[in-house]
């Protein structure tokens, strides 16, 4: 309840600022005889100013308890606010009693008090360096690095990234979430949601988790309104934590895989401003560069090992049920099975036939099917499957455990099923899995980190793509 009222403070504060400055202005302008009529309205404006200042103080006090603002600044802002309210009362008194000298003095004081209090309030919300020249531009993260391998991991890389992207809210002046990222000791201490950085443990490093959340998630950091870290910077921080969250070594002293080396090289290029060249457009970058998702083809999901031809009688019986059974190509005995014309409610007896095609069956496509627990158990035995589509099916968390023995799976399509992150975690390791489709399944943005951790080497597509409506999308050029 108190929280709720507190949230009106940022709106209400603008009323006393406006009213009181107007009252002071009218009071001063009214000194000229041609504008003396302005003074008639001063008491009314003052009363409005005083009342709104009072409400601003009350909501301000309510707000102060709910978030972590720097205490000294908050204290000053609080007392200056109360002072401003009292001064407005004083001005009312002086104006009503027509005490010219006292009025002049109090209006001057009041104007100063409003300005200072307002600025402090602004500093509390937007950070202390908000009102300075050059603000509004995105600060470059890294100063140019000539040779990244001999750079210092903390002072040359981690610290500048934190300084540029985090410290305005997690620093000396402001400690949102009780977290400071401006010094190694504070970084290791963490914030109110736990450790920001836990050496060699990405899963328990809150900082990494927040960075990896989709940008529209509530807990994503930095907040979407602020400048974001680049993909390479995030990869770098992940590597840094994985390598032990060290504060003293040079880069070349830390363990690196080939991928890490490439990532570091990109970071070096970015620091030298290579990343912005493309906008000027002088040279075409090499096609098919890093950062483009690899392509997994249908052809690559056919095993090389030959297999005996399938039992023709079983194939025939499946075809009678409207199931499409085909070799994956004319020189292969491996089979592709598609239930597209077999209806929605598939009887257990039909699915049971699949088990007899187990050695040959590698691609199984079942869209919009309703199966029983027993049928899912049968599918779980088809251990040669490389591509499995159970989109829009009734597959749930309870039944997905059946799929954990499908160790050959490359491609798993669970679009529109009822599976959630809890079910997927039960799947365990599927060593060959490369692509996972989860659009319209039971996932929310908050599951993203857990998903990535459960399937680190997998291209996960949760879909839900949106395209903004651009002005030209509807207008007609005549």
């Amino acid at each position: 309840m108190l929280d709720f009222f507190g949230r009106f403070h940022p709106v209400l504060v603008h009323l006393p600022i406006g009213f009181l400055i107007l009252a002071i202005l009218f009071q001063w302008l009214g000194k000229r005889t041609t504008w003396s009529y302005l003074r008639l309205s001063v008491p009314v404006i003052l009363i409005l100013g005083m009342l709104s200042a009072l409400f601003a103080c009350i909501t301000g006090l309510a707000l102060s308890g709910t978030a972590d603002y720097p205490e000294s600044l908050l204290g000053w802002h609080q007392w200056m606010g109360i002072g401003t309210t009292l001064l407005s009362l004083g001005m009312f008194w002086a104006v009503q009693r027509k005490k010219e000298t006292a009025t002049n003095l109090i209006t001057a004081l009041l104007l100063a008090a409003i300005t200072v209090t307002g600025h402090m309030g602004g500093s509390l919300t937007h950070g202390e360096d908000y009102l300075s020249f050059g603000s509004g531009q995105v600060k470059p993260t890294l100063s140019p690095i000539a040779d990244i391998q001999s750079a210092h991991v903390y002072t040359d890389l981690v610290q500048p990234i934190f300084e540029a992207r985090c410290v305005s809210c997690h620093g000396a002046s402001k400690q949102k979430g009780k977290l400071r990222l401006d010094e190694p000791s504070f970084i290791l201490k963490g914030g109110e949601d736990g450790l920001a950085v836990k050496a060699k443990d990405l899963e328990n490093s809150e900082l990494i988790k927040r960075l990896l959340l989709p940008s529209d998630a509530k807990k994503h950091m930095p907040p979407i309104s602020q400048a974001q870290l680049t993909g390479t910077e995030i990869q770098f921080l992940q590597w840094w934590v994985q390598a032990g969250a060290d504060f003293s070594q040079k880069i070349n002293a830390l363990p690196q895989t080939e991928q890490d080396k490439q990532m570091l090289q990109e970071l070096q290029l970015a620091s030298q401003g290579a990343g912005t060249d493309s906008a000027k457009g002088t040279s075409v970058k090499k096609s098919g560069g890093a950062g483009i998702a690899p392509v997994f083809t249908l052809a690559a999901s056919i095993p090389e090992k030959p297999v005996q031809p399938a039992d023709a009688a079983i194939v025939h019986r499946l075809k009678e049920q409207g199931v499409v059974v085909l070799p994956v190509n004319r020189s292969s005995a491996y089979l592709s099975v598609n239930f597209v014309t077999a209806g929605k409610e598939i009887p257990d007896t039909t699915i049971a036939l699949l088990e007899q095609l187990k050695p040959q069956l590698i691609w199984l496509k079942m869209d919009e099917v309703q199966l029983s627990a027993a049928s899912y158990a049968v599918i779980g035995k088809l251990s040669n499957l490389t591509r499995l589509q159970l989109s829009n099916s009734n597959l749930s968390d309870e039944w997905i455990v059946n799929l954990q023995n499908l160790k050959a799976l490359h491609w798993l399509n669970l679009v529109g099923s009822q599976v959630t992150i809890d079910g997927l975690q039960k799947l365990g390791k599927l060593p060959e899995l490369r692509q996972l489709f989860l659009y319209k399944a039971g996932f929310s943005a908050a599951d993203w980190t857990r998903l990535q951790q459960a399937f680190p080497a997998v291209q996960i597509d949760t879909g839900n793509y949106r395209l903004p409506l651009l002005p030209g999308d509807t207008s007609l050029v005549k």
Partner: protein
Amino acid sequence: MTRDELHAKRLAKEAETAYLQVHTRRHFLKESAMGLGALAMGTLLGSCGQSAIDKMAREAANSAKDPLQEFDPARPLLAKAPPFAARAKSVIYLHMAGAPSQLELFDFKPELMKMDGQDCPPSLLAGKQFAFITGVPKMLGPQASFQQRGQSGAWISDHLPHFAGMADEVSFLKAVTTDQFNHAPAQLLLHTGSARLGRPSMGSWVTYGLGTENQNLPGFVVLTSGGSFPDAGKSVWGSGFLPSVYQGVQCRSEGDPVLFIKDPHGMSRDLRKASIDAINQANAASYEEYKDPETLSRISQYEMAYRMQITAPDVMNINDEPAYIHEMYGTKPGKSCFANNALLARKLVEKGVRYVQLFDWGWDAHGDHAGNSLNLGIINKYRSVDKAMTALLLDLKQRGLLDETLVVWGGEFGRTPMMENRNGVQNPFKGRDHHTDAFTIWMAGGGIKKGFSYGETDEIGYSPISGKVEAFDIQATILHQLGFNHEAFTYPFQGRPFRLTDVGGRVIEEIIA
């Protein structure tokens, strides 16, 4: 079955058809009052030929005992396995009929900007023939601003702000050429492999070779938008010398997808079934008598039409899609437009349709009036396809369909770097003439590289300097992705095997992942 056996079988089939044509003519003579003299001879010839063909048919039936390799002449669209390992199962071909300008969309030429307004150098005109340009035209700089997009750094102009985000999903072919500078022959060449009428279209070849997995829907669907058919007319999705069951089924994106798909008032489903059965019985009897393979096509089309009455309205109805999908594509429900067709294309491919061909008319940017001017009317064309084609790629991707669906986008030729001067007089609006030497086509999904570009044109986008490809190469590549060797995929006709790529075609290995 070896290739020779297959060939022998096809030759036998052609002999049978030729024989039956004779037989049918004799039958006409028999039926007419004047044909009495021919009657005896006809029956005589008929009976001895008949038994030989029956024997051949029986042998063919025996060799196809394997239920996985069977070919049922009454169900010619049954799915067949591709000859080789495929990288795509379906194709969506987005054809911008009239030919969009590569110089305003993908082929960024800053040098051309410097030459804007200057007379065209004679070296570019010597020995060339254009559709409209005569005399010495002026050069015309790019009517667009360009940026490099994505990790791949592909140049995409600001005319396609949505598609710009797809740079890392597609492969561009920047140096496509053709030898036809008029719309209809160029479209025919691209889709049928010949600039003249009479060849089967690519979709017909594909459905002939692969059939389709969903027997309740056509295997090859055509959707048009833009207010007009492509200049090549329906031949561009015709079946040529292939049985007519393989021709493209043109569906409407407005109103009922197929005209008269609903039973008329008062006709029950049972009555419909009974009447179709009766017609098919009559047709079967006719087939027994005349052995015309087109009769089988007719029987299977009646049966498919009956099944389609149930499935097609469902699949073809985009109104059931959620509002956010409509917003993503930018559809106009109830109207006929490219966005509706793009959404429909996804729904069809999702249900197993093999080949979906979209034609969007109105890209012919001559600049002889405001409606086809590069910086007026044509901008509306860019805007009308940009969101929908981007949405199509994203929607296929999120459903896991992009891996197995090959999406192709392009026109039938390109546009000149010169401003059009029709009959030697500068056109009133900014426009470009037809250009055969260089244009851009992109492909995505279906085992094609992501974020890649192949081929380059010279400084003004006039001629290819590397990576030149032609229509046959595009066709060979599409067939390759579907699991065909385009040189071995033939159909016997008029005494020789025909193929889609005629005597040309090279699979563009460079863009294959």
